[in-house]
């Protein structure tokens, strides 16, 4: 059955939207509904009630009175309610308004001369001819209506036109007095067919008076099934509840009208009927209170079923739940290759790959099936079983311990068996939010004990994953084509270079970087024992010759160990991350061991840190992925990270608040610097008050003061940091992390050891709170440093109460900013993806949409794949020249080029963090900010 369906593709040529006429509603109706009751005392549906069995069946065993089908055979049938008085359909009020305004109040003709109408028709035809789509034709009709609405007097009968306004949601007024739906309907009826065509309506399928309902379609019971609770009580669907309301009021309205009740009462009931019909369609219509359930919960009516993230479109049509997938918590495993993913046994037993039985594998498959659904290997380890055997006729047979032998015997060519996961199966692994293509990559399975998915830490950056409780999804591919495609296009190693900026997104993080630093910085050396330990982590069996012999003992340098995993012909030069900033000489670089020189696969000098192996910045990773291919890059990342972890484990690594200890002497110095700065600001304030402050060009006196104060205080914070930094050497753990790029920055450290500095909101010193002051602890109008949010203390020394409050003020801005940014960027991303989703690069290099029209004549104007570009450029001429000519440029030249090329990216720039709960987004309107 499935195979015959495959490959049949059809293109939708056109879609026509039309209105249901009252006639059509009655024609398609299986029964008229007149009573608001649902079930009788015996629990059977009442005839001509809302649950009439002509409308379909929801209870097993019963038969549909319309088609005779049982529960799954009968699709359900519509019914209808005849409304006592016409009511306006909320979904069409805008169109009704347009039509009322564009046509004569008396004769119903379009308020345009014949001549004008012809012109607009001609224009419409022309747009259609030039391949204009529905929206483009829509612009013309909109323009037509706008033109017609301008006219004050009917060109056909000469009638003066009253002003028609819409009192939201459904009341129309002409020159202030109400038009009943009945009057509205009469007016719409008067519009002649040919005038409707000019307005873009096809009168054969959509007469405007059908927008005012005289009959209401009742959806089949299958659309609004009632549920039976354990207590035996029936609970009806929200739609049924709403229809009950409509029926009740409809009945009362009819009775009152027929009995000749006062006009006022009839009108009230009519309005009530309008309310119920309106909320039946859309219970979030602005201007009227939403209809509520007895519990106070607003009812979920038709529009609510379709709209928004939980609506039919986004949740059931654009997105679907799938089989052969799993979700669980993730945890790290540095032993796994970056290409792998650890899958828990329990998940592996549920997830299956279909295997087609052929002559070459028939016997093998039989042995699999024979083992049953939970086989174990010779050592009690996991072995793949079979969950289902599928016969050629499509019947599925569940394999159990008991029937395994019998089922196995029956397996023949043409059968398919669903085999459980084995090591090496290829699966897709994904973490939401899926913001870029690296959010879903193909991994090779490793079945493992315990209950989490595990993967290499180097793959955290592309997924933006951490292990504080994150969960991820896994999908098992079900066809050979899909597996081949995933292996070639989606495997992790193919995504080391990002298309975002043409550099690596996969690489060492945190301890990998610290470890590489400890391994290679300066003259680090390791004993035979330590070297064996480090090398045992990677696949190197033979010890290299020792570099140093001292006092009869052999030592190996870390640089030599690291060189062992580099390709033998790799040569490159770059600055380490620990290099001092700014333009510095060769001597200083060498002193800090921060000029990495690799010659023929040997690290001659320099420290391996973030700039060498880090994600986003790793130059070696970048070069290997580019010049030696993804296989070599994957191998390098696997080995470098394992080695780094070996190195860090030998030395041991920790950090604590005592890493920020500085001598009393330094503390005093810092205090002096801060005090001087504060006094300087005071002096500034004094001169401002005396009016002696020299105004900066383009700034007011107040602004000048603020700018100057900020400058002084900023400098003071930096100075404090520098003083503190002098006492924090490179042997300090926190400094190692900050300088090598593993975690944290020198600014973080100076805020811990020195001073936190000026707090700001919107880039200005704090100023709001009380009248003319930030807190009641200060004098009104105090413009000094401490009164306006300068925090003298360090994180280590602790903050004074006022400082603490200021710090919270500054910190809050950051939180609000990220909250606002995430919702906004999420919405922007959604809109962007909706606009771009059908674009594709064709064989000839053009970018086209599904209609085959050209969007771009060459992809990106240059046809270059950014992930294969060198920092955005198609070719790295210098690199090629060097390789071809074999000339080594001077180190300074080389560095200059690199600095020009590098964008100075950090991990922070890569992501805007998106919170788990995406903000609810309306289809056309941006989310409101409240």
């Amino acid at each position, binding site marked *: 059955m499935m195979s015959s369906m495959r490959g049949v593709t059809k293109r939708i040529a056109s879609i026509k939207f039309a209105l249901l006429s009252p006639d059509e509603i009655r024609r398609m109706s299986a029964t008229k509904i007149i009573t608001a009751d649902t079930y009788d005392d015996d629990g059977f549906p009442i005839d001509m009630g809302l649950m009439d069995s002509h409308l379909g069946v929801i209870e097993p065993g019963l038969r549909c009175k319309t088609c005779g089908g049982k529960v799954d055979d009968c699709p359900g049938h519509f019914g209808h309610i005849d409304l006592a008085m016409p009511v306006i359909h909320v979904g069409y009020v805008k169109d009704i308004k347009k039509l009322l305004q564009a046509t004569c109040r008396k004769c119903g003709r379009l308020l345009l001369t014949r001549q004008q109408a012809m012109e607009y028709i001609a224009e419409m035809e022309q747009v259609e001819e*030039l*391949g204009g789509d529905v929206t483009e034709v829509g612009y013309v009709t909109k323009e037509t209506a706008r033109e017609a609405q301008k006219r004050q007097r009917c060109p056909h009968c000469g009638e003066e036109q009253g002003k028609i306004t819409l009192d939201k949601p459904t009341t129309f007024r002409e020159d202030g007095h109400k038009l009943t739906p009945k009057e509205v309907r009469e007016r719409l009826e008067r519009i002649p067919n040919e005038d409707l065509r000019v307005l873009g309506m096809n009168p054969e399928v959509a007469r405007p008076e059908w927008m005012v309902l005289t009959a209401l379609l009742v959806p089949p019971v299958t659309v609004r099934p009632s549920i039976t609770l354990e207590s035996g009580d029936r609970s009806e669907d929200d739609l049924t509840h709403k229809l009950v309301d409509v029926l009740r009021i409809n009945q009362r309205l009819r009775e009152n009208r027929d009995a000749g009740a006062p006009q006022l009462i009839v009108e009230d009931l009519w309005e009530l009927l309008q309310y119920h019909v309106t909320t039946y369609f859309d219970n979030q219509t602005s201007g009227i209170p939403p209809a509520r359930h007895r519990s106070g919960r607003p009812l979920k009516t038709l529009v609510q079923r379709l709209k928004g993230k939980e609506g039919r479109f986004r949740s059931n049509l654009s997105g679907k739940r799938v089989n052969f997938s799993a979700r669980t918590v993730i945890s790290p495993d540095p032993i796994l290759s970056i290409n792998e993913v650890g899958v828990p046994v329990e998940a592996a037993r549920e997830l299956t790959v279909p295997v087609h039985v052929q002559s070459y594998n028939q016997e093998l498959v039989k042995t699999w099936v024979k083992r049953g659904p939970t086989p174990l290997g010779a050592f009690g380890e996991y072995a793949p079983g079979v969950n289902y055997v599928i016969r050629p006729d499509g019947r599925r047979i569940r394999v159990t311990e008991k029937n395994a032998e019998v089922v196995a015997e029956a397996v023949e060519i043409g059968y398919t068996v669903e085999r459980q996961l084995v090591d090496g199966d290829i699966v897709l692994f994904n973490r939401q939010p899926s913001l870029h293509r690296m959010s879903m990559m193909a991994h090779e399975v490793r079945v493992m004990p315990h209950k989490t998915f595990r993967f290499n830490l180097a793959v955290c950056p592309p997924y933006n994953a951490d292990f504080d409780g994150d969960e991820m999804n896994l999908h098992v591919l079900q066809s050979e084509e899909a597996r081949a495609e995933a292996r070639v296009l989606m495997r992790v190693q193919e995504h080391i270079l990002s298309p975002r900026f043409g550099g690596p997104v996969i690489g060492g993080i945190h301890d990998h970087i610290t470890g590489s630093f400890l391994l290679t910085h300066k003259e680090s050396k390791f004993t035979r024992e330590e070297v064996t330990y480090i090398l045992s982590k990677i696949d190197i069996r033979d010890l290299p010759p020792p570099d140093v012999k001292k006092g009869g003992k052999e030592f190996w340098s870390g640089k030599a160990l690291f060189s062992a995993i580099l390709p033998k012909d790799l040569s490159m030069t770059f600055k380490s991350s620990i290099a001092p900033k700014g333009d510095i000489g060769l001597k200083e670089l060498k002193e800090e061991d921060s000029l990495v020189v690799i010659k023929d696969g040997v690290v001659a000098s320099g420290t391996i840190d973030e700039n060498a192996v880090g994600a986003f910045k790793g130059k070696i990773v970048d070069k290997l992925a580019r010049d030696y291919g993804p296989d070599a890059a994957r191998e390098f990342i696997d080995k470098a990270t394992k080695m780094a972890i070996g190195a860090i484990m030998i030395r041991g690594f920790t950090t604590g608040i005592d890493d920020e200890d500085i001598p009393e002497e330094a503390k005093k110095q810092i205090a002096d610097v801060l005090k001087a700065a504060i006094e300087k600001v005071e002096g500034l304030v004094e001169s401002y008050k005396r009016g002696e402050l020299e105004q900066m060009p383009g700034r007011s006196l107040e602004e000048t003061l603020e700018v100057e104060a900020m400058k002084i205080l900023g400098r003071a914070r930096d100075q404090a940091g520098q003083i503190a930094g002098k006492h924090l050497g490179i042997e300090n753990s926190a400094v190692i992390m900050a300088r090598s790029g593993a975690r944290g920055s020198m600014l973080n450290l100076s805020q811990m050891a020195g001073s936190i500095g000026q707090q700001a909101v919107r880039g200005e010193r704090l100023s709001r709170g009380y009248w003319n002051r930030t807190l009641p602890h200060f004098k009104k109008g105090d413009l000094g440093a401490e009164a306006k949010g300068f925090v003298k203390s360090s994180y280590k020394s602790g903050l004074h109460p006022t400082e603490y409050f200021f710090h919270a003020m500054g910190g809050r801005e950051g939180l609000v900013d990220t909250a606002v940014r995430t919702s906004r960027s999420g919405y922007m991303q959604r809109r962007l993806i909706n606009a771009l989703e059908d674009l594709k690069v064709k064989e000839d290099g053009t970018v086209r949409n599904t209609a085959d*029209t*050209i*969007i771009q*004549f*060459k992809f990106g*104007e*240059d046809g270059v794949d950014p992930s294969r570009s060198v920092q955005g450029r198609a070719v790295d001429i210098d690199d090629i020249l060097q390789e071809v000519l074999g000339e080594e440029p001077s180190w300074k030249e080389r560095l200059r080029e690199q600095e020009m090329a590098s964008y100075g990216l950090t991990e922070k720039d890569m992501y805007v963090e998106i919170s788990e709960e995406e903000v609810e987004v309306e289809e056309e309107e941006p989310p409101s900010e409240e």
Partner: protein
Amino acid sequence: MRFNVLEHQLVPEHRLVAEEEAERVLKAMKITRDQLPKIRKSDPVIQVLEKIEGPIEEGRIVRVTRVSGTAGVSEAYRLVIGR
């Protein structure tokens, strides 16, 4: 017309393509006219071109030569449509 938009630094060079050349270009790209990106006759650029070239009918093709950050110079074509 207040000023010539083509002289603005942010507006790329637009040129009307001769009919025979247009045919050649379309043939080379193996596309029909309606697959091209569109430009309205009311577009200020077309208004300026009409001053230079005389009236431009719908269905004519305009070449846009852009200075591109990635490719140096890139060429694109647009189909003139009504309004």
